[in-house]
Structure formats: structure tokens, C-alpha cells
């Protein structure tokens, strides 16, 4: 064949030969204005995902024994916290004693309130950080807050329009956010909350706050019988009243509750369309003979060697040594702490192993879910926000 478009002999080739000259000319005719690199989409991305936001602890009130409702104000220039999806969590980072600690907390307040610069969490005093946050940190303390994260949210495509939420203790927090989102109009789905507490005194919220046709709350008390409350545990008998094939179940609470409720859900004749559970941070493991290993940590061109106990995760070792460690979910899921295992051996429980397949192939770990089994050397990403 012979390709020909123009009827004028030689014209096709002449046009081809002129291409670069034409491009040169068009560049020359273009404006020499400064280059605009940031557009609305880039600003949207920066606003929704700032990495970290500085936040000021502005109020703290006890809601029951050991539990506090803590409110933060945004110190970001625009005065907002990022808009988020109800059910997400944030992290808080601060130096406590010699350690630099980061902990995840579900947001209890609504997305619109975040746009007004306020964010509320519920904290139970259980460890070093929560004790500091609930008792020691003065009102007015400035902390580093990690951007809203997580996928424990209603999704209009994935989930049914009816959510049966099952919560224990502070696991109520993400559902409080969802109910507030429904009430204020930033979410639109039906939520039945089955809330387990020991006694009335342990209840973390006032159900009267949520007067909306789409919201129903059943509180189940395990250690007390009282009018208007169910008694016992969130058993199959209670679940079957609400869980249908046209509902999605969301679970948030202690691991013991998950084990029990998942068992009870298994007994139902009509299974829900889906079951989603918020994962809890990976804690210490129980070992007969705990050992202490050497952990060599590379951060950029810095190398430090610290102790790491075999019953604690590598993140805990880093925090104990006062090294600011990048971590978000602490449950192995999010991959924010993704690090290179240079040498040594680690144990990662299969149920906490959410690494990518190639990470396993090439030797990468999530230090929040990995325990040392020998002396270990890792290269971790630098904590890239000002303390």
C-alpha cells in the first residue's frame, strides 16, 4: 500500500516535516505567565487529606467511671477539621514522659461539626496515653491530630440502607457520629443501634438526643435489670428482631464482644447482607518466656539501636524509646507504618496481616502488627510533621 491523504504530490510529507517547526512556533506564541500548579481539586485534596492537623484540647467531661468526652478545636488556618465520613477515626500524637505516642480514636461528633472546627472523641482510661489524655493533659494542650481515616462507614453501594449497629463500651463512638450525621442530614440511612453496657451508669450517651425516624436505639444491660432496657447480652434472640437479609451489620467493641456476637449472628435463620467490624489495635501477646532483642532502626541517614521485647509490637518498642513513629490504625490494616525489614524475623498473626502480597514477597512489614522474634533491623519512614 501507499498511504496518501493529500491530492497534492509531496504535500503529506511536507506537512510531516513541518511538525516540529509548528510546535516550536506554538510554544513561542504561548504566554510566559507563571505556572499554575494548584487547582480546586488539589485544594480539595489538601483540605480532605492534610496528613496532620494541629488541634487544641478545649473541653473534657466525665461521662461515666473512667470514660471522658473530649472535644478539640481545630488550629488549622481555615478553622476546620477535614470533612469526614461518619464512622472514621483520627489519631492523636503527643510526647508523654520519654515516649512519643500515637493512638487512634473513633470520632463521635458529626461531619458538619468538623466543618465548624470541633471534633469530639470518647476516651476510656486504660493505658499510658489515655491516662495522660484524661487526667494530666491540661485543657488548652495542643496535639497533633492525624487526618480522618478508616472504612467503618456506611457506603451507599456496598451496604444496605438499614444498618444494624452493635456496640459495646466506647465502641458506641462511631455510631454516635453516624446518628448525628443522620440527624444533621449529612448521611441518609436507617440505623438500629444495639448497645451493650453493664449498667445504666455505664451508658455513654443520651438516647433522647436522637429523635429521628431513621434511628432506633436498644440498650442491653448485662449487669442490671431496669425498665426500658433489655437485659442480658446481644444474643441471637435480640438480633433476630432486627437483622434481616436486607440489613448490613456493623460491629464496634471489644474483641470478646465480636467473638460472642459473631457466634450469635451465625445462629440466625436470616443472615445479614454483610458484616463489617472495626478492628481493635494489636496489643501485647502472651509468651511464657518473654525475651528482649536488639532493634536497629534506620530513619533516613540516622541509625539507632534500641531494645524490643518479644511480647510487644515493634511500634511499641519505637514509642517506648521515644522515637516518633509513623503509625495510624495500630491494627495492621492501613499500612501507614509500612516499613522495610532489613534483617531478622518477626511474627505477624495471620488475622492481623493485611499486607500487600508483594510486601510479603520482598520483606516489608507493618510494625504495628509485628512482634520481634530475633534481633531485627528495620527501615521506617520518617515522622514528617512537627511535634
Amino acid at each position: 500500500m501507499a498511504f496518501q491523504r493529500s491530492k497534492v504530490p509531496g504535500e503529506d510529507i511536507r506537512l510531516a516535516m513541518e511538525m516540529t517547526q509548528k510546535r516550536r512556533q506554538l510554544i513561542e506564541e504561548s504566554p510566559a505567565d507563571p505556572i499554575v500548579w494548584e487547582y480546586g481539586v488539589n485544594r480539595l485534596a489538601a483540605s480532605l487529606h492534610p496528613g496532620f492537623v494541629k488541634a487544641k484540647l478545649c473541653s473534657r467531661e466525665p461521662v461515666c467511671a473512667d470514660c471522658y468526652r473530649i472535644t478539640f478545636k481545630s488550629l488549622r488556618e481555615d478553622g476546620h477539621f477535614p470533612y469526614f465520613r461518619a464512622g472514621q477515626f483520627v489519631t492523636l500524637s503527643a510526647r508523654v514522659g520519654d515516649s512519643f505516642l500515637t493512638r487512634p480514636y473513633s470520632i463521635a461528633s458529626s461531619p458538619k461539626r468538623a466543618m465548624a472546627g470541633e471534633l469530639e472523641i470518647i476516651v476510656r482510661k486504660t493505658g499510658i496515653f489515655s491516662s495522660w489524655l484524661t487526667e494530666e493533659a491540661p485543657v488548652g494542650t495542643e496535639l497533633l491530630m492525624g487526618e480522618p481515616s478508616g472504612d467503618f462507614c456506611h457506603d451507599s453501594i456496598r451496604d444496605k440502607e438499614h444498618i444494624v449497629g452493635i456496640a459495646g463500651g466506647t465502641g458506641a463512638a462511631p455510631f454516635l457520629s453516624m446518628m448525628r450525621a443522620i440527624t444533621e442530614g449529612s448521611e441518609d440511612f436507617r440505623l438500629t443501634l444495639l448497645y451493650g453496657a453493664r449498667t445504666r451508669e455505664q451508658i455513654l450517651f443520651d438516647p433522647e438526643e436522637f429523635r429521628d425516624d431513621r434511628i432506633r436505639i436498644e440498650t442491653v444491660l448485662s449487669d442490671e435489670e431496669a425498665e426500658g432496657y433489655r437485659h442480658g447480652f446481644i444474643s441471637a434472640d435480640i438480633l433476630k428482631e432486627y437483622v434481616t437479609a436486607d440489613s448490613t451489620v456493623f460491629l464496634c467493641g471489644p474483641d470478646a464482644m465480636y467473638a460472642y456476637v459473631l457466634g450469635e449472628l451465625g445462629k440466625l435463620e436470616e443472615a445479614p447482607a454483610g458484616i463489617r467490624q472495626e478492628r481493635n489495635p494489636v496489643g501485647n501477646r502472651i509468651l511464657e518466656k518473654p525475651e528482649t532483642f536488639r532493634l536497629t532502626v534506620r530513619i533516613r541517614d540516622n541509625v539507632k539501636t534500641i531494645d524490643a521485647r518479644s511480647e510487644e509490637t515493634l511500634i511499641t518498642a519505637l514509642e517506648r524509646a521515644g522515637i516518633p513513629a509513623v503509625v495510624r490504625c495500630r491494627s495492621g490494616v492501613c499500612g501507614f507504618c509500612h516499613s522495610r525489614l532489613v534483617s531478622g524475623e518477626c511474627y505477624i498473626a495471620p488475622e492481623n496481616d493485611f499486607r500487600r502480597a508483594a510486601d510479603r514477597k520482598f520483606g516489608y512489614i507493618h510494625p504495628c502488627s509485628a512482634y520481634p522474634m530475633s534481633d531485627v533491623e528495620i527501615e521506617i519512614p520518617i515522622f514528617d510533621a512537627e511535634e
Partner: protein
Amino acid sequence: MDRYDVIVIGAGNGGLAAACRILNAGKTCLVCEKHNIPGGFATSFVRGRFEFEASLHEFNGIGTPEKPGSARLLFEELGVADKIEWIQLKNAYRLISKKEGYDFTMPFGEEAFIRANAAVHPDGERIVREYLTLCRQIRDAMSYLSAAKGRPDPKVMMEKYPDYMACGSYSVNEAFEALGYPQEIVDNLNSYWCYLGANGNNLSFLHYANMLYSYISNGATIPKYRSHELSLALEERVHELGGDIWFNSEVTKILTDADGHVCGIRLKDGREIETRHVIADVSPHVVYGRLMDSEAVPEKARKLTNFRKLAGRGFTVFLGLNRSAEELGITDHNYFIYDTADSVAQYESMKTIGQTAAQATVCLNNADPECSPPGTAILYMTTLFTDDVWSGVKEEDYYRVKNEIAAAMIRRFEEATGTQIAEHVEEIAVATPETYARYCGHPQGTVYGYESQYYDGLMNRIQMVEEDHMVPGLRIGGGYGERLLGYPSSYKSGVNEADRTLRDIGKEGM
């Protein structure tokens, strides 16, 4: 060490490949990456029991060990070929276009592809055989030009590659008009346009014809463990060669000296590192608009950058399904699902927020049945936006808007293929231009670099690559580079910029 021979900004495909090349030549090299993992778009993410591929649909240019393609040879040179496990894809694509009623399944392999075109048009075999002959000449001419390193013999070009010369200035639509093929054939041969994202009126025919020929003749592959495997293979190679990669380490400034030559970089935390040579795997918009002081940017660089047109802004729906592909009746790996086969009409539909007229959809299990647990499937659907329409979306509307478009794309897939998938969504993630802007910092959330425009196409860029280089000590490669978007192109572009940097270093030594 606070001084490196070369600093690479961005551990994307171009940046990682460039770093390997620099280190292979015995120079010291630091890669600074703002994210916590390498790869840029070449990555993956986990949701529940699924691991989703973030961007790659099919990798062209690997070929087979017996008949290696150019990308495999490049990976061998870089020393990463043995680190990657490839899966060969069976079919090229299935084209379903609603308006014309097309449903064609096209295999890889020249002869098989030619034969399959008999189902497209009664004279399809003859026409497509002729067409592939033209494509082959274009491919050969490009190989010759590449080997001639910018000094081709005009006599050879005219005698051996006359058709290449004759169609050199034309767009896809102009060339097909001249060829006079039946519309069905043209539409089928145009199926791959969405991989380049410029419509037939603008897209260089040479570029498109070469790409189609490469796909059909070489076939395509995917890495066994998603594109994250490619990125980690390259990262491992950088470490083996003694290079450094710093994550969470965003470069905020490229420093230049009084002569306008690169003299270092500054990181977000204020730390400065000396170097005479930077390779930026970053959009030139960001390099000249953000990373350099405006006085340090030559006027010509501003003109060139303002001349460019930002290409497609990405949108992808990732689905983890709780049924197998077989149970759901999803039979193919790679679908092009179009409302109309007219690329100009598709392109125009992408200028408003809403359902566009085109989506490319991959069912990963039909390439690798082991990619998700038994009884499940992974599906991802991609479209583009050809204007900056996402810039008007408000924070509080964002999550709703993206799910509306995702739902429409799921419905269209169901209609086009006669399957039911919406009821089986166990995991979902939706990436929008905001997502791509967030992770890779590209202006407007583009995923395709600069659009292949009539006067800014592949051949023009390659021929003018030295003219487009403006700041001494600074080379810009990757998806915005002279070879345009795509996996093999961005790796190759990174290597080319590394070679140019090595030449620059060589000249300094003299």
C-alpha cells in the same frame, strides 16, 4: 551524607528506573518520595480480603522470555527482570458499544486478530491485514529512528518508510479518513484510544498505530502481585546498588545557583541536600510552578509549560465481589464499554461531572484466578475526565458525588454484559481526580500527564527533547516525559533522563 551525585524527586515508575540507571553507572543517588511507599500510581491497596491494583490494566512490552519485548529488555538492563513474575493475558479486549450494537472479542496475535475482524466486517480480514502492514512499517521506522539517535538518513527514511513519512502529520481520524476503511473496522481499531486519552481528532496516528501494533503483536501481561511488585522490585534494586530512598520526604524546593544551575534540594522539614543533578519524576507544572522560585524558571520553560494541555483526570471504581467471576458470568479480563464508539463524542462526554460515555473495566480473576480468595472476584472500572470539572466539588458533597458516578458505572457494566454485580459488592473504593491529586500531587488530578495533542505528540516530543530541556542540571521524566503516559513509557522516560544526566555529568568531568 548531605551530598549526592544525583537526587531523584519522586519514586514513581520514572524515578525508580532513573535511580537504578544512575546507580548502575556508579554514581551516588538519593530518591526523595513524599508518600510512604514507592510507585506513584504503580501501587496497590488492601480492603478486607481483597488487594486492588491501583492503576495497571495491562502491561505492554514485556513479551515472552523467548521473544522479549522492549520493556523486558529494559528491566533486564536495570537488573530487576528476575524479581518480577509475569502473567500472560489471553485476549486483547472485548469491545461493547451500545449505539452501534458492537460486541467484539479480540485476541492477541497478529493472525488471530486479523481473523477475528471477519466478525466485524465481511472484508475485515483483508483490510486489517493491510492495516497491520502499515503499522509494522511505522513500528520499524520508529525502531530505526531510535537506533539512529536523532540522526536518521533521510534517504533511508524515504525509501524504506515512505508511509511512515506520509502519515507523519496526521491525527488518527485524518489517517483513517484517508484510508477509507468501513466504519466498523475503524471503530474496532480505535478501541484502545482510552489508553492514551486524546480523541481521534488530536491523537497522533503514528503514536496510536504503534501502540495498537505493539499490543496486538506482543500481547500484554500483568505482574502476579499487582504493580506494587514492580515498584518494590525496583526499590530493592536501588538498595542493592547502594542507593537511598527516603519516604515521607517531600521535596519543596529545587535550589539553583547564580548561574541558574541546580545546586541542591530542600525537604519539607527544611533540610537541604547538595547535588548538581536532579531528575524530577514530577509534573513540570509542579516543578516550574511550585518547586522553583519563579525568577529561576526560564521564560521559555514557562511558555512551554503553558503550551501543554493537561490530560485525562482519572476516576476508578474498585470492587471486591463475594461471588466468583464464573458465578457472576463475567467471562473476560479486559472490557472497553462505550456508549458510542466515536472517540470525539466520548471525549466530549468527559467534560462534565457525571457518567461519561466510556469505561475500561478489568476483571482481574480472568487473568489470575488466584488474585482473590475462592468464591470472590475483583473488578475495577476506569474512566477519565477531560476537563477540570472536579475542581468545583465541595468537601461536603464529595463522597456523595463519587458514589453516584460509581453506581452509574456499575449499572452500565451490568447492562452491557448482562450480569448482576451490585448485590455482591463486599468491598468498594472509589478513586477520583481528588485521590490522584492527593497521592501524586498532579495538577487537577491528571493521571495521563500531558495530552497527546496534534503538535505535542510522541514524535514531536522525542525530536525536540533537548530543546525542551531548559534548566541546567534538571531533567524531567516519567509520565509527563517525552514518551508520554503509560507504564513502559514512564520507565523508559526515566532511563532516558538518567542517561542524559549521566552525559551531563560526563561533560562536567572534562
